[in-house]
């Protein structure tokens, strides 16, 4: 099977056609195309069926999509029944979504962003921003290569390969580290803004912060922090207008 590198590159755009009907489906079909090319000469009918299956509904974290892509492509070459491959795709959605979201969106990204904010506040500025981009993208590229290779090697046995992989252990470690980093960043960033304005005025900002936390928790999804902020800014301007 050829086309591994092209498929890996195309995985960077796996969310390109994101929609509420097939979600990542079409993006997966686009990434699968180079992998399935050899099947066209071996078994054209099977190739057509495989292309149809590759673009059907699919959803997971984009950084782990390579596992599903590689596994289903391998299964197509191994001649697994079409219904079984479709079931594998469906079965992989939830675990790959949950694992990837915990590892990246709730773990690595807040960890590195927390570090970046600390770096910016302490004066590292461009170095902090460049360091964030470098570390995140190296981690993500390494994960993407591993995911596609593991999927291609494991085929229908990809579930066992995921269970034995490093992902669960990484999630256990990265979550608390992210919490710690964000914890350090919050007071540092607050002080970075407020110490230059002056602490008497800063108490007003801290009162707004406390009110915001309480009110948005109380109202839940109906009053997001963005809505609360826009409301507070508009009220302030109106107040200043009425009572100059």
């Amino acid at each position, binding site marked *: 099977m050829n086309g591994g590198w092209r498929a890996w590159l195309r995985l*960077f*755009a796996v969310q*390109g*056609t*994101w*929609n*509420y*009907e*097939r*979600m990542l489906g*079409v993006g997966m079909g*686009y990434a699968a195309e180079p992998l399935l090319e050899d099947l066209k000469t071996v078994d054209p009918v099977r190739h*057509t*069926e495989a*292309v*149809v299956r590759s673009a059907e509904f699919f*959803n997971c974290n984009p950084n782990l999509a390579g596992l599903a892509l590689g596994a289903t492509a391998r299964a197509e070459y191994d001649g697994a029944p079409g219904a079984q491959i479709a079931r594998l795709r469906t079965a992989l959605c939830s675990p790959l*979504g949950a694992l990837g*979201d915990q590892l990246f*969106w709730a773990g690595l990204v807040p960890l590195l*962003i927390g570090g*970046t904010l600390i770096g910016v*506040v302490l004066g590292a*500025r461009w170095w902090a*921003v460049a360091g964030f*981009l470098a570390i*995140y993208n190296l981690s993500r590229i390494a994960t993407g290569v591993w995911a596609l290779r593991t999927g291609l090697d494991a085929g229908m046995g990809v579930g066992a390969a995921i269970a034995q992989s490093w992902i669960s252990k990484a999630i256990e470690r990265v979550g*608390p*580290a992210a*919490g*710690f980093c*964000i*914890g*350090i*960043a*919050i*007071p*540092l*960033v*607050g002080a970075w803004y*407020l110490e230059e*304005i002056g602490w008497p005025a800063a108490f*007003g*900002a*801290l009162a*707004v*912060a406390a009110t*915001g*936390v309480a009110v*948005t*928790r109380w109202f839940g999804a109906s009053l997001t*922090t*963005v809505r*609360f*902020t*826009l409301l507070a*800014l508009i009220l*302030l*301007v109106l107040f*200043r207008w009425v009572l100059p």
Partner: protein
Amino acid sequence: MTDLSPAGALLLILWGTVVALDLVSVPQAMVARPVVAGAVAGWIAGDVEAGLRVGVLFELFALDVLPVGAVRYPDYGPATVTAAALAADSPWQFSLGLGAALGLGIAVLGGFSLQLVRRANARAIQQLSAALAAGESGAIRRLQYGSLLRDAARGAGLTLLGLGCAWVLARYAWLDRSTALGLTLVAVGCALSAVIGGAMRSAGRGPRLRWLGAGALVGLLVAAFR
């Protein structure tokens, strides 16, 4: 706001397009994160400090978002770019609040425009459903490239609109110093409430909450003694 040359404005629109594409479509290299988008936009606008101040502020709001599944969220990338352009070349204490107000409006609009693009993608898929059912690889490619173009147009339009609003605000929205400072204080307070709320929600009641608390203690000590 800096007097932007046509080349500068074009660069900002290009950067806004790149960060809008990066959020979901391609390549998700995290240049859409506000701290990155703001620093580069500030550099293009000739005021890196303002870009960083705006970028860090919007990053606090963005940390409240967990982009899982089909969740809907504001698009902070082009919003940060336009807010950084508005805040550039003025003392940040007086320009950050107005920049935040503009940026948050653009971010909400950006989130809405993302839904429009997703619905347009679904319509395009329905139009090519026969070709997809026949296993035509060309149809998949056409859908993919069409969707990327739609998202790029969304990003460019959003940034253009934001820069237009920034120009109008810089020219006509005169605020006295105390109101401008008040807006900045409210924006900073709200951003802190966003990041605290988001961090507490993510932490739950497990060990992550304890680590969050320990980190906050360390952060307070560093802030006090640095």
